[in-house]
């Protein structure tokens, strides 16, 4: 997915000379085309994310679009106050891009897992929060992010993610995409874990349970309408995210349901427990350990569908 992002960005920068890249010593093997094509719009701030964000903000304040870019938490948590005070407060046209959302960097360990980002980024005023789930969404999200005037957070995958969508999609910031129709329950996912949700929904279909599958590529502003419609029409919602159980997609969906007194809706969040993951393993192995394999997702949905409402 990072390759898709970088390729799309180069295409956009070809047409728009306001696009700058200010990164923090990360991007080997990916960012070279941008660096070579636009040497006067490419800067490596060194391993210095606070400065990267400040520099990008300054560049954006002068009428440009500045991309910050690094691994997992480095362009977010490492420079959180620069994002809050400098970028968001001034509504600066900075796009914060992370590579390796969730546990994409698997065995590198917790320093390289981005598993609280959605909660934290979603709490910042003015910031749009995007988490594309496959390369088709990644391309569309990159274009939408650049077209949007204001700060955006972009949670990118790493590599070799499988496509969920077939062909063209209608991607709009804040508008969820219905991947599969169904009325027995709704599965709402965000980010690259979506593929496992997609497989789960297909296996449930073979068992006679027809689920609606929704890609919530925008966590903020969240698509309230799609959530309430799903609650109304399917009566059961399962959220799936590669993120701490606190404050991410599941919380955002629950807030919408509670705010609209959507009582009686069966609801379950699939997310990481509220712990520091210390197990060592690949992304897919870790997902399996925390109940996010396709089979585990299918089991959770099935259990919810057949559960009694109290």
């Amino acid at each position, binding site marked *: 997915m990072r390759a898709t992002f970088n390729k799309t960005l180069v295409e956009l920068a070809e047409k728009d000379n306001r696009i700058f890249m200010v*990164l923090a*010593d*990360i*991007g*080997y*093997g990916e*960012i070279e085309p941008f660096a070579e094509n636009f040497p006067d719009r490419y800067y*490596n*701030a*060194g*391993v*210095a994310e*606070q*400065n990267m964000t400040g520099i990008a903000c300054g560049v954006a304040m002068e009428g440009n679009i500045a991309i910050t870019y690094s691994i997992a*938490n*480095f362009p977010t948590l*490492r420079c959180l106050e620069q994002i809050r005070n400098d970028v968001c407060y001034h509504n600066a046209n900075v796009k914060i891009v992370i590579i390796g959302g969730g546990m994409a*960097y698997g*065995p*590198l*360990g*917790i*320093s*390289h897992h981005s598993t609280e980002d959605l909660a934290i980024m979603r709490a910042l005023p003015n910031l749009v929060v995007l988490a594309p789930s496959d390369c088709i969404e990644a391309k569309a999200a990159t274009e939408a992010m650049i077209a949007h005037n204001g700060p955006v957070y972009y949670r990118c995958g790493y590599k070799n993610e499988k496509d969920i969508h077939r062909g063209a999609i209608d991607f709009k910031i804040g508008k969820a995409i219905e991947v599969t129709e169904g009325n027995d329950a709704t599965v709402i996912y965000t980010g690259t874990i979506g593929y496992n949700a997609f497989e789960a929904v297909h296996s449930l279909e073979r068992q006679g349970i027809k689920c609606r599958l929704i890609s919530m590529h925008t966590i903020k502003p969240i698509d309230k309408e799609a959530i309430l419609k799903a609650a109304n029409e399917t009566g059961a919602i399962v959220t799936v995210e590669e993120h701490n159980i606190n404050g991410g997609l599941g919380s955002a969906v629950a807030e919408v349901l509670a705010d609209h007194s959507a009582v009686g809706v069966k609801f379950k969040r699939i997310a990481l427990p509220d712990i520091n993951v*210390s*197990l*060592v*393993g*690949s992304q897919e*192995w870790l997902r399996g350990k925390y109940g996010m394999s396709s089979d585990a997702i299918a089991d959770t949905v099935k259990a919810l569908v057949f559960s009694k409402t109290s």
Partner: protein
Amino acid sequence: MERIKNEEIRQSDSYLKYQEFATSIRSHCIRMTNRGRSGHVGSMLSMADLLAVLYEKILRVKPENPKWPERDRFILSKGHGGAAVYAVLAEKGFFPMEWLDTYYMDNGKLSGHISHHIPGVEFSTGSLGHGLPVAAGMALAAKQAGKTHKIFCLMSDGDCNEGSTWEAIMFAAQHKLDNLTVIIDYNRIQALGKMEDVIEMEPFAKKLEDFRWAVCEIDGHNYDEIEDVLSKVPMIKGKPTWILARTVKGKCVDYLENTVSCHYKYIADDKLDEAIKGLGGQL
């Protein structure tokens, strides 16, 4: 004069011991990263000689009692080189050698970045620029409690791009933390390029002197020089010590040496034996 002295040292027992230890660290790292299909082997090879002297001679630690309160504290701030410290700790008996085989594996014991869940590891790192502030905090607490153990922090040049590192540099000088020693694995290569093309630090030694540290520059692959300076810290009473150890990223595997790409590569199966054989007897 200098050369004659080195020749003599080369014959000495301790020289051979360091060399043997460093070679075993390097060979573990090459095998671990090969098995894990993981990166950072160049970063590990770069600091192997520094680790060999630290753990063979300098650090007062007890493998049978990793939490011994009087131990010297060692923090690896460039956590991406963690496999090299794991190799050291396994060789020293902190944990079973078999754990090394699980590096980077599903359900493995050892993660890509160094973790405090492993016996003998003082602190987890992985995000650069975190090691020195924590080391300075440990040095401060030791002084406050009247303890005599020392704190050592092994850092990379990339670590020194971070503002937090410089904040700690000023703090340590302000509080006269002469129980704190920083060793820079000064290979002058970062993740996207050479220092001169990313963030040049020179005159590095002078910067630190101006920041009121005791500074010394050594060859980070010369056991004599490493042992000599580390045995004498603090170099100046009342000042923290900054050792700029000039190293070669990828050291001892000729085609990796001094390349940016050795930050990402592992040595492939068909080159493994040759690389490990090439380590033996390297001076």
